[in-house]
């Protein structure tokens, strides 16, 4: 009879974390940052049809890095959760914090109990009503850890370096063009990224119910050039 190998829990967790991190580091990153008019998400993405950033609900956006099919599954689950809550209660009862917690539960479970951990990191952002510090940016890691960011955050490969560049350049009251330019340069480092290699979407504080808006390549190019 063969005996199963004993693996220390620390080792098992470390192996899983290394596995997930490797998968995430292979992909290209994204950043989210607050600006005067809301929250903007800038992702490095050469594809015009496979999206990393998308709309979840009226004031909530989602972004993911890592394995596409895995974060897309999470995106759809988030839309479902939000729509079900809004349908059964009220649209006002849907918020990013609850959604971030639900994502954390799912990712945490898959990390400890699943066949393999999900190779994704996701971002849930919500634009507040007043803009007086009520915007929210949640970063949820492959193991279910949730980090709440005040101003800006970076996800994906080389996140530490990107975060460094991002926080160096960040200042209060950036306009949209400034925020997109900072996001793009933080992602690029010593490379340079053109508008076609970027996917940009914003959550705009305003009178419209649906705050999410995608920016086309032309608009991004204009913002980067200004």
């Amino acid at each position: 009879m063969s005996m199963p190998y004993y693996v220390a829990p620390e080792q098992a967790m470390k192996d899983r974390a290394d596995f997930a991190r490797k998968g995430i580091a292979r992909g290209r990153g994204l950043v989210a940052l607050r600006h005067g008019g809301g929250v903007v998400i800038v992702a490095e993405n050469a594809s015009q049809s496979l999206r990393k950033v998308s709309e979840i609900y009226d004031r909530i956006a989602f972004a993911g890095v890592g394995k596409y099919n895995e974060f897309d599954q999470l995106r759809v689950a988030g839309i479902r959760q939000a729509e079900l809550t809004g349908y059964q209660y009220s649209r006002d009862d849907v918020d990013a914090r609850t959604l971030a917690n639900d994502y954390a539960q799912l990712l945490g479970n898959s990390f400890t109990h699943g066949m393999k951990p999900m190779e994704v990191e996701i971002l849930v952002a919500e634009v507040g009503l007043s803009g007086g510090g009520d915007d929210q940016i949640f970063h949820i890691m492959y193991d279910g850890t949730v980090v709440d960011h005040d101003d800006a955050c970076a996800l994906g490969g080389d996140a530490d370096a990107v975060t460094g560049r991002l926080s160096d350049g960040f200042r209060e009251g950036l306009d949209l063009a400034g925020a997109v330019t900072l996001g793009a340069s933080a992602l690029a480092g010593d490379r340079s990224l053109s508008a076609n290699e970027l996917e940009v979407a914003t959550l705009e504080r305003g009178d419209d119910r649906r705050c999410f808006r995608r920016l086309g390549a032309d608009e991004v190019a204009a913002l980067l050039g200004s």
Partner: protein
Amino acid sequence: MALPVFESADDPGTDFSRLLSRAGVTQPAVGGLRPEDIPHATTCVALRFDGGVVMGGDRRATSGHLISHRSMEKVVQADSHSGVAIAGAAGPAVEMIKLFQVQLEYYEKVQGNALSLEGKANQLSSLVRSNLPGAMQGLGVVPIFAGFDTRRETGRLWDYDVLGGRYEERDHVATGSGSLHAGTVMKMGYRSRLDRDAAVALVCRSLWEAAEADSATGGPDMVRGIYPIVAVIDRDGWDRVGDAELEAVFTGIVSSARESSS
């Protein structure tokens, strides 16, 4: 609440009604109700014009001979370029509109692109059909769906029967208890290539005549400042006509009626 994640075999896809039943949110079946106990909504119309469509509906809901609401909104925006108007049992109708709005947006977000206008009309058809048990008891819902087809660059409109039958109309359509009168007024006043203002005026006129002849249809309530809901849907999307403009249109109708009877 755990996130709704499904195996690919039983994934509800882009159908929000299926998601609701998979999530255990079901609607109770109704039974033993008399139609006169339930608020009913009445006259709604839609009209095609040069740049799109105009929709309109009165504000009255009745339970038998009682006026149960004076400011009901029967014409509502479905999404950026379409609207839906309802006649029939108010409760199921309001619920149907809510489900329809959620369904359109849900599809758009999950799928990444919006349904075509015809797809939306078809979707509403299945919602009307799902109310068949209610319809058998006299609690039917008969909507109108209209919008601007951004692919064909034209306004389009559909009406339905209680069984979910879907009929695309060319120029104008009316539903509800006052539909005979409203429909006749639109038929008489319709010309091809109406402009926006003329279309709004004709819609108002048709609702006025319906309210004159049908007790379940409310006219403009000048005392309380409650006017029918009129909305224009064109290339730029849904735009509800303001009360000030409607007041002017109805004041014109009143004075012409006064002249002809003096």
